[in-house]
């Protein structure tokens, strides 16, 4: 029972981070119909930027904001320079392009910062919380992670639902030409979408790294887990991505806890295939069929 509780709590924390990551993919998918396979590498880069700042005695939360800003800038830059030429082209082109970007960012980070593991600090304790004299499977940093992800999500909901900017961004994503005819600067909105997504990815990177070791590969599993979580939710639905992230986080936590850590990716693959083949439009899609 104790183990089950611990595994569940661990899964929720993990799921929250997957959710943030899936949300980032979803934002980009909605606006440009591209799955950004470089998302994890981008987040890894911004996490290293934060680490350098922290090592230079910059306070943690300042470095956190810097990582977010760096993600924002990196996302905008990448959309403008690299992605723009393939928007609306054959879908394989964008896939290969973002994979290439993944390799480049990965390699450049390794060259710049080295491949060795480095400790990454956390702003609050990463030791399990104790109630009475039993420790329960969640840490203050885990709780903080969930809170941060929830805040990010609430922020996005407010942006998209209640602001004019959010309305412009949604309109651009759904119908670029009509939006242009209505005066919306669609190009800018797409850039902004990538920038926001990368900033959300940067937050996820900070949460994954906190209290743990980082090396240039530390985000690699998120290339696939973020994708799977987003597909679970249907790729198109931000809420779906969040729920997909939680489901995936819990499932993998149970697999790791009860079956074997190394089987987690295989189980993830199984979940992905079942969803793609049985419910191609994701677990929560209303009606619109999706061609996978």
């Amino acid at each position: 029972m104790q183990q089950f509780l611990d595994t569940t709590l661990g899964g929720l924390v993990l799921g929250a981070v997957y959710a943030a990551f899936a949300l980032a993919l979803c934002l980009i998918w909605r606006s440009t119909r591209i799955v950004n396979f470089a998302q994890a590498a981008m987040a890894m880069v911004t996490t290293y930027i934060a680490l350098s700042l922290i090592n230079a005695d910059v306070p943690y939360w300042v470095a956190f904001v810097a990582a977010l800003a760096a993600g924002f800038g990196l996302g905008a830059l990448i959309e403008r320079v690299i992605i723009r030429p393939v928007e609306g082209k054959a879908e394989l082109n964008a896939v290969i392009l973002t994979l290439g970007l993944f390799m480049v960012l990965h390699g450049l980070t390794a060259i710049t910062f080295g491949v060795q593991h480095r400790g990454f600090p956390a702003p609050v304790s990463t030791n399990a919380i104790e109630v009475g004299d039993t420790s329960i499977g969640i840490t203050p940093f885990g709780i903080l992670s969930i809170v941060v992800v929830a805040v990010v999500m609430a922020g996005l909901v407010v942006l998209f639902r209640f602001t004019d900017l959010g309305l412009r961004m949604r309109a651009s994503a759904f119908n670029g030409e009509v939006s242009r005819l209505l005066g919306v600067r669609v190009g800018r909105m797409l850039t902004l979408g990538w920038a926001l997504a990368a900033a959300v990815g940067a937050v996820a990177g900070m949460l994954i790294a906190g209290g743990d070791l980082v090396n240039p590969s530390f985000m690699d599993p998120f290339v696939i887990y973020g994708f799977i979580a987003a597909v679970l939710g249907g790729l198109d639905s931000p809420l779906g991505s969040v729920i997909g992230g939680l489901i995936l986080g819990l499932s993998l936590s149970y697999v790791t806890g009860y079956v074997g850590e190394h089987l987690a990716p295989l189980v993830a693959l199984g979940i992905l295939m079942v969803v793609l083949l049985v419910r191609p439009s994701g677990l929560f899609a209303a009606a619109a069929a999706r061609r996978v």
Partner: protein
Amino acid sequence: MFAVEELSAAYGPVKALNGVTFTAARGQVTAVLGANGAGKTTLLRTVSGLVRSTAGTVKLNGKDITRTATEKLTSYGLSHVPEGRGVIAELTVTENLRLGGLHRATGSEPMPVGRVFELFPRLGERREATAHMLSGGERQMLVIGRALMARPSVLLLDEPSLGLAPRVVSQIFDLLRGLVQTEELTVVLVEQNARSALSIADHGVVLNLGKVVASAPAAELAADEQLRHAYLGF
């Protein structure tokens, strides 16, 4: 006033628009007529900068707006309702309308969404519905209402009658006629449905193979039997 002079455009080697010239007077409906593939849609898309013009000019109230970026045109007072009713299906009726008002003609007063609901009560009943649930006629009302939100002085409409029942068409056309008077609108109405269009238009321009083959007061065109048979199909 809205004027097009010697406007040309091409899709690769295909010349779709070949030196088109006409003016649409303020406060009037100018119908642009012609068979399938005559170049009507291309004309509007070239005016809006969605298709690059190869020659010619477009003037809006004396200002040259040829090759102005598409996104800027609403701020100059030109709204284009594209062919096939460009509702943004994923947004609600109200959101579509709000979007239309975000980039209005410079210096104009914002238009309350409620004003559109007065013009089109049917839309008011469905204000929270997602646009993909609307009927064809409702969608047409929505896109016209959305265009009005930008307070245009010139409204370009591409085949508003497409796929609508005759009763709905005449309803929408009557509304248009009324708007022209109350809002001081200049309307360029592209239509294949020449008979209905001419019934509300002041002036008519007939296109064929990208060229203007006739330009005359609407009543005159409607009376010209030869022209009607050759180009207008009624």
